[in-house]
């Protein structure tokens, strides 16, 4: 029997994709939330000194994986949320990499200390980067028969984009005015069986 233990901070951030995948699959796991003061201890245990990382134990063997999206794809393939067939899986991957690019741009904004630079990045994010990426997602989602990215059903990228939109907070309402299919995806994921139950019980955190 395989057991899973996720190590991440008490926030959504880059760990929530993994939590959403576990929720969607119904697979039990230990959701360990690291206190900020304890981070040095856990940093030393993580493969590259970063979180999230996932401990996978199968009998006597333990494997530790880091890089949130590598973990995401691994679980998605195990749980059937990776897309059907090599070509669809690759297309899912492609949109996933686009979402990662966008998330990284957002992270740049969040981490910027210099107020002037931060404002500059925010403007670029709001006026150029967000719309650029959302346009692509909108175009794909608008074609969907199911409201998810792919007609074969829910894939990890639906959860990934849902999480990113969640991190934007109220800013997303502005986006939703221009990108209706993206809004529809957000709503669909929120309402999706096991996800809905998870969203009702998960810890409330700002990010």
């Amino acid at each position, binding site marked *: 029997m395989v057991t899973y233990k996720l190590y991440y901070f008490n926030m959504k951030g880059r760990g929530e994709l993994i939590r959403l995948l576990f929720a969607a699959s119904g697979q039990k796991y230990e959701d360990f939330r690291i206190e900020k003061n304890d981070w040095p201890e856990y940093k030393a245990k993580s*493969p590259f000194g970063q979180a999230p990382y996932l401990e996978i134990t199968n009998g006597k063997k333990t494997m530790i994986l880091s*890089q949130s999206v590598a*973990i995401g794809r691994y679980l998605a393939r195990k749980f059937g949320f990776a897309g059907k067939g090599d070509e669809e899986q690759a297309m899912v991957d492609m949109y996933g990499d686009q979402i990662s690019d966008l998330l990284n741009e957002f992270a740049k904004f969040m981490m910027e200390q210099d107020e002037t630079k931060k404002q500059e990045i925010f403007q670029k994010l709001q006026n150029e980067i967000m719309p650029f990426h959302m346009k692509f997602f909108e175009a794909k989602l608008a074609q969907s028969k199911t409201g998810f990215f792919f007609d074969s059903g829910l894939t990890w990228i639906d959860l990934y984009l849902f999480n990113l939109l969640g991190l934007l907070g109220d800013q997303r309402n502005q986006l939703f005015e221009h990108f209706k299919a993206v809004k529809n995806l957000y709503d669909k994921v929120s309402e999706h069986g096991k996800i809905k139950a998870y969203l009702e019980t998960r810890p409330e955190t700002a990010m």
Partner: protein
Amino acid sequence: MVQYKLYYFNARGRAEFIRFIFAAAGQEYEEIGFEIEQWPEYKAKSPLGQAPFLEVVENGQTFQLGQSLTIARYLARKFDLAGKSAEEQAKAEMYADQVFDLLNEMVKVHFEKDITRKIEAANKLFTESIPNSLKVFDNKIAKNGSGYLVASGLTWADLFLADFLDRLREKKDILLSNAPAVKSLYEKVLDHPKVSKWIAKRPKTEKYLYQKPQNFD
């Protein structure tokens, strides 16, 4: 029969490790290269408005893929360079994502206009980020017994790491002196019979082409 077409600028840039994958697999492909001035024409044909992009033609059907990592993962799986189990595949992807983060950090340094921030960021890259990651790679490789990042042998993650090290040019020597297993891996990849053939015949441009990260028009 499947035909592959790789579209990218006439440079190494974000496509070179994909070329390494084709080479290691001994897979023929068509290289469609262009200059920056020609980009608008190709951008219009691309799936995401970005390069590189891949076209796969099979049984009269064309399938397009963008995002260098996606292309790499797809080809690696097709050519058995992805790792021999779901777990190895995930490890290879983890290592590759780590290399990708380093590459993006390097690009960020390149584009930083403020001199103070640029020097600070370059410092962090070469004294912390890269050495820290190399140390982890070094430990993994040393433990594996295969001389590569995963136990079963060569994967696309090794090719990506080798390409990244290439970009560091003379800076890599000192970095690799502290990571002997990585140094061996790097030499193994360059000496790989099929990869070395590609390296010998590839265009002698040293261009990595740090084009603007995004074109937002």
